C-alpha cells in the first residue's frame, strides 16, 4: 500500500523544507496557482471523497463549498491541531515530522476557498510540534512561499500558529474559534455555522491536521486516484493511533476499511502478553466500545456508524481480558466531567453525576439501581446540548453498560 500522509515520516530531517522540496513538495500548490481555478480545486477534493479526520468524518470538499465565494469580510482557515481526544496522537506526528505537508495543504485549502489568513491551533502540551510548525512557517516566509504574492503568483497568504492552554473543549470547532479570539473556550450556538460566520465573524473553514495533509497528494494525483483507495464513500487511508493492550502500539497509516482484527492482530502484533481481547474503542474515547465479537467490523466511517460506534479520530484502544470495564467507564466519565465547558445544564451536571455513579460502582459502593440510573441520566444528556461533548460522555457510558452489564452487576449490592 502506498503511504500518503506518512510517506516522509521516516526520512532524515523530514521536517526540513529542503527535504520536503526534494520529495516533490509544494508542486501541488504551484499547480493550483498556475493552472487551476479555486472551484476546480474544490471539485477535485469533492471527487476524492476525502472526509474529515478530526472526528465527524464530514466530506471536506463539501465543507469548503459551503463558504460563500464573495464575502465583504475576510475569510479564515482554522487548522485543528488541538488533538485532545484520549487515545489520539496522530496529528502530532504530522506536525513534528512533516509540517510542510500540512502547510501545503493549508495553502491549497486557502486558495480554494479564497482565504488570506490561516491559524494553526496547536494543543498547548505539544511544545515540540509548535516549535516545528513555527519554524517551518518561517522557512516559507523566507522563501516567498507565504506572505504577499506567494510563489510569485498574485495570491497572499499568512499563516499563524497559536498554542492552546490544555482544554479538550477547544478542539470543538467553535470552542476553538472562541479561544483563538482570546475568549473563554466554549462552543458557540449554531447557527450561524462557521462557514457563514466564524472566526472574527468571517466565514471560516475548520479542518483537522490530517485532513489537510491529504490534500497535496489529491491535487498531484487527482481525486479519482484517492477515491480508489479504501472503500466506497470511505476513501483513502488514515492514520490509526493504536494504544492500550497491544504488542506494538503506534501510529499506522492504513486503508480505510481494514478490520479491527487485522489492525490489532496483524499490524499491532495482537494483545499484549498473548492475552485475550475483551473489547476495543475504535475512534477515540468518545466512540462507544465494541466487543471482541465485533472485531471483523471494517474501521471506516459508515461501517462503524452502522455498528453503533464511530470512526472518530482514528484512535483505537485495545482492552484486554483482565481490564475492568467499570474502572474504564469511571475514568472515561471523569474525563468528560473534567473537560465539559459547563455552559449547558445537562452536560455540566450530567457528566459529573455519571462520573460519580461510575466511581461509586467501581469502588464497590454502588447499588443495583445505579446502573439503570446511569442509562437514564445519559439518555437525558444526548442530543440536547450546544456541542456533542455531552453525547460523547453519554454514548460510551451507555455502551459500557449495555455490552458489559455483568461486570457492573458483579460490583453492586
Amino acid at each position: 500500500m502506498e503511504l500518503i500522509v506518512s510517506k516522509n515520516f521516516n526520512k532524515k530531517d523530514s521536517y526540513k523544507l529542503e527535504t520536503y522540496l526534494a520529495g516533490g513538495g509544494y508542486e501541488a500548490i504551484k499547480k493550483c496557482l498556475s493552472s487551476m481555478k479555486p472551484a476546480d480545486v474544490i471539485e477535485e477534493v469533492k471527487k476524492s471523497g476525502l472526509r474529515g479526520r478530526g472526528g465527524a468524518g464530514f466530506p471536506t470538499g463539501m465543507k469548503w463549498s459551503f463558504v460563500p465565494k464573495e464575502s465583504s469580510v475576510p475569510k479564515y482557515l482554522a487548522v485543528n491541531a488541538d488533538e485532545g481526544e484520549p487515545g489520539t496522537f496522530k496529528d502530532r506526528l504530522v506536525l513534528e515530522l512533516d509540517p510542510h505537508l500540512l502547510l501545503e495543504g493549508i495553502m491549497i485549502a486557502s486558495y480554494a476557498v479564497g482565504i488570506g489568513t490561516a491559524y494553526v491551533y496547536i494543543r498547548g502540551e505539544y511544545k515540540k510540534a509548535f516549535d516545528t510548525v513555527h519554524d517551518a512557517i518561517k522557512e516559507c516566509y523566507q522563501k516567498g512561499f507565504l506572505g504577499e504574492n506567494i510563489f510569485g503568483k498574485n495570491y497572499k497568504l499568512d499563516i499563524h500558529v497559536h498554542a492552546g492552554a490544555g482544554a479538550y473543549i477547544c478542539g470543538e470547532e467553535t470552542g476553538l474559534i472562541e479561544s483563538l479570539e482570546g475568549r473563554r473556550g466554549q462552543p458557540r450556538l449554531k447557527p450561524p455555522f462557521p462557514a457563514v460566520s466564524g472566526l472574527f465573524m468571517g466565514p471560516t473553514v475548520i479542518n483537522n491536521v490530517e485532513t489537510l495533509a491529504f490534500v497535496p497528494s489529491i491535487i498531484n494525483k487527482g481525486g479519482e486516484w484517492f477515491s480508489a483507495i479504501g472503500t466506497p464513500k470511505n476513501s483513502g487511508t488514515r492514520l490509526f493511533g493504536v494504544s492500550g493492550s497491544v504488542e506494538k502500539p503506534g501510529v499506522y497509516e492504513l486503508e480505510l476499511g481494514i478490520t479491527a482484527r487485522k489492525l490489532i492482530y496483524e499490524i499491532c502484533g495482537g494483545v499484549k502478553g498473548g492475552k485475550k481481547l475483551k473489547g476495543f474503542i475504535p475512534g477515540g474515547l468518545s466512540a462507544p466500545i465494541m466487543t471482541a465479537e465485533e472485531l471483523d467490523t471494517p474501521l471506516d466511517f459508515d461501517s462503524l456508524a452502522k455498528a453503533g460506534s464511530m470512526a472518530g479520530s482514528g484512535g483505537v484502544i485495545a482492552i484486554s481480558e483482565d481490564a475492568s470495564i467499570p474502572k474504564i467507564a469511571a475514568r472515561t466519565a471523569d474525563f468528560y466531567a473534567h473537560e465539559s465547558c459547563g455552559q449547558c445544564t445537562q452536560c455540566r451536571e450530567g457528566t459529573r453525576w455519571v462520573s460519580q455513579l461510575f466511581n461509586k460502582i467501581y469502588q464497590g459502593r454502588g447499588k443495583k439501581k445505579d446502573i439503570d440510573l446511569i442509562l437514564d441520566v445519559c439518555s437525558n444528556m444526548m442530543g440536547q446540548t450546544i456541542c456533542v461533548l455531552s453525547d460523547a460522555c453519554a454514548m460510551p457510558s451507555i455502551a459500557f453498560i449495555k455490552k458489559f452489564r455483568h461486570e457492573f452487576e458483579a460490583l453492586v449490592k
Partner: protein
Amino acid sequence: MPNIIIDGNQIEAMATDTILSAASRAGIEIPHFCYHPELQYAGSCRMCMVEVEKSPKLLTACSTMVSEGMIVRTSTEKVKKARAAVLEFLLINHPLDCPICDKAGECPLQDNYYKYSARESRYEEEKWHKRKKIDLGPTITHDEERCILCTRCVRFMQDIARSPQLVVTRRGSKNTLSTYPGAAFDNPYSLNTVDICPVGALTSKDFRFKCRAWYLKSSRSVCPFCATGCSTVIQHDQNVVHRILPDKNEKINGSFMCDYGRLFRKHISSENRMTAPVIKNNRKDASSITTEESYDKAFTLIGERLASVLKNDGAKQAGILLSPYLSVEEAYIILKTFYEAGSSHIALIDCGEGIDGFNFSDDYLISKDKSPNKTGILELAKKMGINFIKPEALASAAGTKKVRALVFAGPPFGMSEYYEKNKAELDSADFILSLCSHFQAPASRSDAAMPFSLWCESEGHFVNKRNMVRHYCAAVCSPAKDAPDNIQVLCRLASLFKVKMDYRSPVEVYNDIKNQMHLFE
C-alpha cells in the same frame, strides 16, 4: 411576517422573532432561565427546548428564529421529559435552601420546578460545595451554590451596562461566577443583576433578609433621582418601603434602572423625616424654644409672623425657592400664589450639576441633571409668564433686605447645599418658612417648618428631560401623622398670601393645568 403555528395556534410572528419571543407575545409560556428579552440570547440552560416539525432534535426556542410555516409544539412528551431533566440536573448541585433564600416566592427555579417537574430527586451523591456569602462589591452578596450559571448577569454587564465586570471562571460543574481577581463589582447598575438572576445567587445587601417577597405590595412610580425619570415599582409592607425596582418601560429604561435610584429608598425612612410642624420663637437665638405644633396652630402662627414681617406690602418682599423635586401640581400652586401675590423673587434650585456631591452621569440612564421635574416646572413658569431669578439672586435679595420673608418649598436635595453655601445672606431674612420632608437645613434653621410628603407618599406628575409626562401615585403614607397632603398645605399657604386656592387633590390641579393651560396633556 412569517406565519407559524405554535400548539395549534396560528401566529403572525415578526421577522426578527425567535420561537420564544413569538410565543410569549401570543401568551404561550415556554419556560426558560438564561433567556431574557433584553439580553443577547445564550441558549445554554436548555430549558426552553421545543419540538419543531422536520427537526429531529428538540430546538431551543430562545435562539431559534421563526420561519414561514414553522410548526412548533411546546408540550409534547419529549419536551416534557427534556424539561424535567433540565430541572433535575439544575437541582442536583443546588443547596435547596429556599426557606432562608431571599428569592423564594419570586424564583423562576422554584416556580418552574413546581410547574414542570415536582419530582423527587434521584441524586444521592455528594453535592459540590462552593462558596457562600461572597462579598462581590458594595451592593451585592453572592452565593455560588445557588447560581445556575445562566450568565444573565454576565451578559447584562457586558451588553447593557457595557462594563464587563462579571465572568464565569473554571470549567464544568466547578464553574463559578466571579469578578476579575481582586476587583469589586461596583458598577452603578449592579443591582439589576439581582432582579434578573433567576435564583437567589445574587442578593442585594440593601434588601437581604429584610422582608419575604410575598408580603410586599407594589405601587407603580417614577424614579426621582435624575431627569431621566425611569419607571419604577415601589415595594412596601406596613408602610415601609423595602425596595424600589425598575418597571418595564420600553421608551425610557427598558427593564432596568440605576442603583442610586433604588437606594434613594434610604431617604424615605431616614431618621430625620419631619413628623409634625415645628415652630421656633426666635430662630437667631440658639436657646430659643422649639415646639411641635398642630397644623392649625402652626398655620395661625405662620400667618401672624408673615403679616408682621411683610406689613402692608403684601408678597412684594416675599421670596420663594422651589425644589425641582416638586410635582407639576405642587409647583403650579406655588407659582400661581406668588405670582398673583405680586412677588418677583421666584427661584428654582438647579441640580443640573448633580446633588450631594454626586455628579456622575453616563450616556445610558443616569442624567447629569439630577432634577426629576426641572423641565415640568420651567414649562409651567414659561406658560404663566414667570421669569425665575437665579437662586443666588434670591440670596442677595435677602442679604440686602429686599426680601424679608423666605419660603423654601420641597425636599432638601440640592436645597441643603444651596442653603449652606448662601447661609450668611439667607439668614438676614426676617422670617423663613420651610416646607420640607426632612428636618435638616434649611428646615432646621427656619422659623417654621412644615412636613412635606415625598414623591412616594403623594400623587403627581414629573416631566422628564425628554418632555415625557410621568405620573406617580402614593405608595406609602407620610411619616407625619394626620398630615394634610402637599396640595392642602400649599393651598393654606396661598391663603396666607391672600390668594384663594381650594384644590382638594392633585387630580383637580392637574385637570386645571391640562384644561386651562393646555400643558402636559
